[in-house]
């Protein structure tokens, strides 16, 4: 068995002359929580899209759970899941209908009682019949998490999971993610702009700047290397280029 949940080698994506992801390589171990950071336009979403098979790399290789993406796309996607507040579930279906449809899409045979138990765990009890469009941001994000766990994924990709949540909602989601890792040893690969959250949650961080991976390691180690006190300070200095940017790894 491949010890890595995610292996990325020399990943590059160009759109015409614009290089959006530039020769990025990294691995993520099974059961790790890895924060994928970088200013807007750094190439995070593009990298995520390549990991999920939505976008074909110009160069380089991606392996998820030991299988090559996109060649083994269907086998990989059955074992992973993706959640983003920017890709909400269709608002014109009820919560229950959305979960039923996605359970079938993942080929998962979960009875309604099991799905409702999942909803209850995420504080969405009694919402089976509620139209998804009528959920609050926090409820919507938690429903996304329920959808994300339908197929008991081995790897969970999250794109800014706490964006648009109030501190209480964000804290609940972080708690859920930590529980999930502890209970199921899920690998979590997530992007976030909340640096305190990243420091609290991540075993390791990957820092992307202008498409290049400029730092990798446990948060404290990265901070020591950049001689900064907090990830927020480091993020601001990198974004404003007030720190010597090391060459891409």
């Amino acid at each position, binding site marked *: 068995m491949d010890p890595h949940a995610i292996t990325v080698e020399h990943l590059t994506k160009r759109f015409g002359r614009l290089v959006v992801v530039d020769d990025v390589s990294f691995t993520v171990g099974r059961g790790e929580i890895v924060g994928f950071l970088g200013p807007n336009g750094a190439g995070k979403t593009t990298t995520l899209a390549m990991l999920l098979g939505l976008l074909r790399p110009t160069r380089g290789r991606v392996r998820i759970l030991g299988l090559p993406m*996109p060649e083994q796309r269907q086998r990989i996607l059955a074992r992973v*899941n*993706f959640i983003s507040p920017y890709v909400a579930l269709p608002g014109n279906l009820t919560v229950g209908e959305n979960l039923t449809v996605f359970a079938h899409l993942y080929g998962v045979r979960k009875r309604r009682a099991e799905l409702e138990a999942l909803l209850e765990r995420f504080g969405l009890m009694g919402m089976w019949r509620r139209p998804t469009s009528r959920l609050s941001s926090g409820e919507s994000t938690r429903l996304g998490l329920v959808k994300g766990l339908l197929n008991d994924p081995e790897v969970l990709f999250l794109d800014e999971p706490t964006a648009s949540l109030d501190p209480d909602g964000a804290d609940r989601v972080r708690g859920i993610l930590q529980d999930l890792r502890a209970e199921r040893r899920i690998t979590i690969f997530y992007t976030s702009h909340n640096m305190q959250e990243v420091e609290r949650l991540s075993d390791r961080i990957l820092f992307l700047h202008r498409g290049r991976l400029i730092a990798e390691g446990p948060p404290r180690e990265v901070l020591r290397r950049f001689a900064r006190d907090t990830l927020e300070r480091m993020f601001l200095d990198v974004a404003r280029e007030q720190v010597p940017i090391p060459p891409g790894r």
Partner: protein
Amino acid sequence: MTLAVGAERVVALLLRQLYLYRHSLIRSLEIVYWPVMDLLVWGFVSVYVARLQGGGAAAIAFLVGAMILWDVFYRVQQAISVSFLEDVWTRNLPNVFVTPISTAEYIGATMLLGVMKVAVIGVLLAVLAWLLYAFNIFRYGLPLLPFVLNLILGGWGMGILTTALILRYGQGAEALAWALAFLFQPFSAVFYPVRILPPVLQHVAWLLPTTYVFEGMRAVLGGRGLPWAYVGWGALANALLLAGAGCVFAWVMEIARDQGLLLRVEG
């Protein structure tokens, strides 16, 4: 096992459509609203023409029969492209394409949806045509069936082609979902024989798969038996259209995966 899992994913997409219709009376009524309006207008026009020209039942049969068969083609095409647009409007495409669904399963579900819609519309129109105009399409029975199947093939082809164009050029191209099929209509001799067209356009007409269907339909309704040549040529042309559309869609999906169109098709 793989086939069963694939079928389950197709069922998932059909279920979603069912839920959408269950929630919206307007959406459900819209399935039958336009076909019924078309039938009323064309039915009464044909009654008027029949009285004016003394064409009798034949004029009604040609026009109402053509209208019903055209609807088969148009609704099958539209079911495919509008299903895709549903995912664009609700920004659900990335959600769907990060599940293990294959492109063939996704398109297959929309094709099945088209057939299901047409079955509902077809039966309703046939009953209304019988009640309002004493035109019993079932009297012609089996001979019309090969033409209906031909139109479903052609509708699938046009639907897939339209969807490919929307995926390639974004939501700005969504009008094609309603408009593209009508590009065929004037040259397919839907409501009149091919010989009515100017000679140059007659050559164009015989290049279209739909022309064989409507010429064949007139032969059947006119009591001239089932013209197997039209069935054969129509099937060949429709199969070519479907295969060509499939190739175009596969090519556009490659472009989509290269340019990230699945993430920003609404743009």
